[in-house]
């Protein structure tokens, strides 16, 4: 439920309660006023009747329209009593509630009972009128609130909606994406925009420095690695070393090479994320797969792996050639590495998917984690655990689906594009 409807409903509910209470109060006030006015009217008539009595000194009971004067035998105390009574209404020809004034007046040394009555305004009539007018007012108010509410809120919430749109467009990865919020006179939105501006700036600069760090880290590592590698090689090339020393150096070189691969792979991941591989062209995937298989041919043969290939010709995709090569390299590399001697690899390329199936020992980890960085089936193995992370990144970049299945010591990686 959106804000406007919510506020409107709340307003409608509150105003309903207010109208109910207001109705009761209005009714009471009006009744009081009417009552007081009628009594005042009857009292005035009593005064006029008193003047008539003084002038005429009536001896007998006098009965006129809505007026009865009865001379009393004895002198009584003066008093005025109001009461309601039912009297036949002449025009309406039915009994109507009348207000009755019954007074004892002492005039010219005599007591008179004076009875005056008049048609009363009935509470029911007042109530009906009141309810009717209140309902009408309430309906007008309701209509006005809804119409004005929607118009005004559309206007007032405009800056808010514009802010939402601006946030939606904001991308962390796009360095040039400048988030600009609309100017607004509403203090709350001003604060919101200011806060969002600060927050996005902070997020962007944090992301930027993180990105720069990983870029620099993998890049800056290359030079020291190059220096160490050079030193080790110069050392190894001297002829004065014994076997143990040569082995030590070789082992250091070996480790260094892992470090080198690690930093290269991380740098590749970062560069894919930074969208640095943007030389997209139409690639003949069929011949690309063919070419790669050729590169791996000897490795496959040396491990006595039987290779079956099923390539549909002229399958084309739009991608960066380097990334395409990286993807195939990593997948084939895995298929060879995690295979047995005399194992099997099956490569199948169709119009919309590439499938590489290889035999090999069961995974020791959750297959879903396989695409995460540094996840590998055998933690002590020599592989870095970055190959499939790179593959995943490439697939994400081109919105391809990457799946892994395992059954009966057969591992299948499927890329659907």
């Amino acid at each position: 439920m959106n804000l406007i409807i919510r506020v409107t409903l709340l307003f409608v509910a509150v105003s309903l309660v207010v109208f109910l209470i207001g109705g009761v109060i209005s009714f009471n006030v009006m009744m009081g006023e009417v009552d007081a006015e009628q009594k005042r009217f009857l009292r005035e008539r009593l005064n006029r009747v008193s003047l008539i009595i003084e002038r005429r000194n009536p001896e007998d009971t006098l009965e006129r329209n809505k007026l009865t004067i009865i001379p009393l035998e004895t002198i009584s105390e003066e008093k005025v009593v109001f009461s309601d009574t039912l009297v036949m209404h002449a025009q309406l020809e039915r009994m109507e509630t009348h207000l009755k004034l019954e007074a004892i007046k002492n005039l010219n040394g005599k007591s008179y009972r004076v009875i005056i009555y008049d048609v009363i305004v009935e509470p029911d009539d007042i109530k009906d009128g009141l309810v009717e007018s209140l309902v009408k007012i309430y309906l007008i108010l309701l209509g006005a609130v809804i119409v004005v509410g929607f118009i005004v809120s559309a206007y007032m919430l405009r800056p808010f909606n514009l802010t939402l749109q601006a946030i939606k467009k904001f991308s962390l990865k796009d360095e040039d994406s400048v988030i600009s919020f609309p100017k607004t006179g509403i203090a709350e939105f001003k604060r919101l925009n200011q806060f969002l501006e600060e927050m996005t700036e902070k997020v962007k600069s944090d992301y930027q420095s993180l990105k720069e760090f990983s870029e620099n880290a993998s890049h800056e590592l290359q030079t020291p690695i190059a220096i160490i590698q050079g030193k080790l090689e110069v050392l190894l090339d001297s002829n004065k070393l014994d076997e143990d020393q040569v082995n030590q150096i070789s082992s250091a070189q070996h480790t260094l090479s892992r470090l080198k691969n690690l930093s290269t792979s991380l740098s590749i991941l970062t560069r894919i994320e930074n969208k640095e591989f943007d030389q997209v062209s139409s690639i003949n995937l069929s011949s690309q797969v063919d070419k790669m298989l050729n590169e791996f041919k000897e490795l496959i043969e040396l491990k006595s792996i039987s290779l079956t290939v099923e390539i549909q010709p002229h399958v084309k995709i739009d991608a960066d050639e380097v990334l395409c090569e990286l993807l195939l390299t990593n997948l084939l590399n895995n298929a060879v590495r995690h295979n047995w001697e005399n194992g099997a690899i099956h490569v199948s390329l169709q119009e919309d998917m590439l499938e590489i199936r290889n035999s090999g020992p069961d995974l020791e980890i959750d297959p879903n984690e396989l695409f995460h960085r540094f996840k590998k089936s055998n933690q002590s193995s020599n592989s870095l655990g970055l190959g499939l992370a790179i593959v995943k990144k490439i697939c994400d970049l081109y919105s391809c689906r990457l799946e892994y299945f395992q059954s009966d010591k057969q591992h299948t990686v499927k890329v659907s594009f």
Partner: protein
Amino acid sequence: MKLLLVEDQVELANSIHNYFSREGDVCEYANSFTAASEKLHGYQYDILILDIMLPDGNGLELLEVVKRNWPEMGVIIISAKNALDDRLKGLDLGADDYLPKPFHLVELNARIKAVFRRRLQKGENVVALNEIQINLDTHEVHVHDQLLDLTKKEFELLHYFFVNRKRLLTKQAIAEHLWGDYMDAADSFDFVYQHIKNLRKKITKAGGEDYLDTVYGVGYKVRSV
């Protein structure tokens, strides 16, 4: 062969200098754009080994200067910045090769030799070690004039040994040379062993001598003859 190394990392420069001075080649060293310009104007070099990132300038600019003034000089770019556009730009500007850091010195040696052969030996295409002759154009290998049937990798392997004579080639350097980015070196040691075994077999079968020495199980070296 006269080499000029332009590299601001002193330690790395020392290693390269050390490594290449040993074979009787002259390897001089400049650590900045300015020093390199001075040396280039003062002496003659066959091959320039150029780092792109220099403290006082961009190596690519130096490359332009070199190509303008000494077009016959071979240039190999070495850079820690393995950015694709740098590589392309360098090759576009006339560099002969691009080697990303870190690299094996034997690999650099092989690249230098290749450039040297192409540029200064005018594409001299036959390299020989006594009875073994390899033709770099046709990719054929003859032992006592008998054609050897080698696979592509075996040919590359033999060539690598030939250009790195008297150098110790570790299995790792060989693996990286043969498979480059395609393989993790660790996995391919067995493959290197297999290839060398096959290569030896083929050469000796054709009556050639096995010039390969195994060095403590770490690598191989072509015996000096």
